[in-house]
């Protein structure tokens, strides 16, 4: 019996091709069972995320299994002819190694991301529940999860945030701990503010206030985020109660001055205040950062921190690959 993998991902196929082969999470088990029934292979697992669709099969002969699988996909999507160059084909140890890299986040668009681990686990569980796996794939997947965990615990491949929004959210958590007791104000209803505020809300931020020169736009964004709109002339009064301020207006000059924050300090009882300035030109006067309880981060600092994390992760790749190779050598997996 031989292990094979046929798949496409964000590196080999554009989204218009990937979306044609995508399988919804509720259909992963059914898809794996159908694959076995129509191609006559012994075992199968289908992994499908926004960045990849991969088919892991166990068959007596690899080339024959690839042909059958491609034929099955051509019938299902009527696309395989033109999509063929986007697919990669892997056999035996190469396929097992690829699975370990996927599970470890080494093959992800955002290097080291953790979500893929859960997605692969979900896909395997669906195939297992559908009765589409047996000895070989059970062992290969379980070992791959073990290797993935080892890679993540023994290296810093998942450490640090690699996007400006996530760096800002991590910093907010470093200052306030759990964000469920934190209130957020957005100055300027731009896209970057929206994305960053959404990340804060997803991590539990309690309430959002949106202030924008166009009140209609502020109301629109506030409704979308489940928050409240504040007239642009009134944002100083809200400063007394919020913990985090995200600013991204299109103003050509600073709109938050030291005096504005000084006025609110007494009412705030000198609690910590976190300013995230993602506007260019900057919205917040750098002198605001000199106030004792204020932590001010501008777009350049956040981008630099994200870049440092990306670079740290890049440096870890070699070590991750070494762990995967060493583990695979030790495991002597069936089908490889």
């Amino acid at each position, binding site marked *: 019996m031989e292990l094979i993998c046929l798949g496409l991902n964000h590196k080999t196929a554009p989204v218009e091709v990937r979306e044609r082969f995508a399988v919804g999470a509720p259909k992963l088990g059914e898809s794996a069972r159908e694959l076995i029934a129509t191609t006559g292979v012994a075992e199968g697992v289908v992994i499908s995320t926004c960045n990849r669709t991969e088919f892991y099969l166990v068959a007596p002969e690899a080339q024959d299994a690839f042909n059958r699988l491609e034929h099955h996909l051509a019938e299902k999507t009527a696309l395989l002819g033109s999509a063929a160059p986007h697919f990669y084909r892997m056999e035996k140890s190469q396929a097992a190694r690829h699975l370990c890299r996927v599970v470890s986040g080494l093959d992800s668009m955002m290097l080291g991301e953790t979500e893929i681990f859960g997605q692969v686990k979900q896909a395997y569980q669906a195939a297992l529940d559908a009765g589409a796996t047996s000895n070989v794939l059970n062992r290969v997947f379980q070992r791959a999860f073990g290797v993935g965990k080892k890679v993540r615990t023994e290296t810093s491949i998942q450490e640090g945030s690699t996007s400006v929004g996530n760096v800002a959210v991590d910093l907010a958590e*470093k*200052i306030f701990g759990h964000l469920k007791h934190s209130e957020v104000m957005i100055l300027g209803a731009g896209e970057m503010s929206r994305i960053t505020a959404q990340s804060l809300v997803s991590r539990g931020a309690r309430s959002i206030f949106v202030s924008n020169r166009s009140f209609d736009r502020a109301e629109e964004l506030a409704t979308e985020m489940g928050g409240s709109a504040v007239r642009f002339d009134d944002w100083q009064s809200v400063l007394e109660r919020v913990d985090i301020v995200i600013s991204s207006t299109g103003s050509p000059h600073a709109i938050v001055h030291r005096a504005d924050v000084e006025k609110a300090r007494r009412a705030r009882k*000198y609690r910590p205040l976190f300013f995230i300035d993602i506007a260019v030109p900057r919205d917040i006067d750098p002198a605001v950062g000199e106030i004792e309880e204020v932590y001010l981060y501008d777009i350049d600092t956040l981008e630099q921190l994200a870049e440092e994390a990306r670079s740290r992760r890049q440096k870890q790749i070699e070590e991750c690959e070494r762990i995967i190779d060493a583990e695979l050598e030790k495991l002597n997996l069936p089908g490889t």
Partner: protein
Amino acid sequence: MDRWLLISATLLAVFGGAWGMVSVHRGNRSRWTVVWMSAVLVCQIAFLSLRGEQRAACPLADRGEILAFLSWSLTLFYLLVGPAYRISLLGVFTAPVVVVFQSIALLPGMLEWNPQEVAGGNPWHETHSATSVLAYGALALAAVAGVMFLVLDRQLKEHHLKSGLFRNLPPVRELLVSLERLLWLGGGLLTVGIVAGFLMPHDRSALGHLIAALAVWTGYAVLLAVKSVRGLTGRRLSLLAVGMFVLSLGVFAFV
């Protein structure tokens, strides 16, 4: 035997602190520090029990015993407060303070070789001594939390966010909440100690000590009142917690 117990407690604290620092330097949180510090506490309890038996009273009769009792109190509050607020890194910062106090306690002349029974013991006197030293344990830990805040605040202000220490320090708000609770706890215990101090029989020679105790109590009371009514920045609260603890230790070393 008692001396060996204190030496063991000191060595365990050295090891726990060093282990924690190496872990933090590598970017990991040292979960073992809590275990080491628990072992420190066991040795401290054994030491104080032996001395208490010999004294037939609370073992606070010489400077060595006071420092050992203070270290015990500091370790106890760390174990009570640390895990509850998920700030086990507090152990890495607490261990060196315990080592310093206990090392001083072990210096020649600090601990009596043959402790004698305390004659004419008075319950108010013992309450005064025990609660005051317990209070100092809580206030010492507040000072430790203050130092942790100052380190984190500086790193956040200067955007130096790469160190293992930064990654392992608890959030600013949690540190400040812990610091304030410890100040309230220390302040409460100190109040009991002061009241007991007035109720115990004392002669004129104790006047200086009582005035110093009152001054320290007033200092902490003002700090807590200002924090509650007006508010204080984290940096000022931390600096004051550290400064007042060091100052009050200095006062009692000479009064």
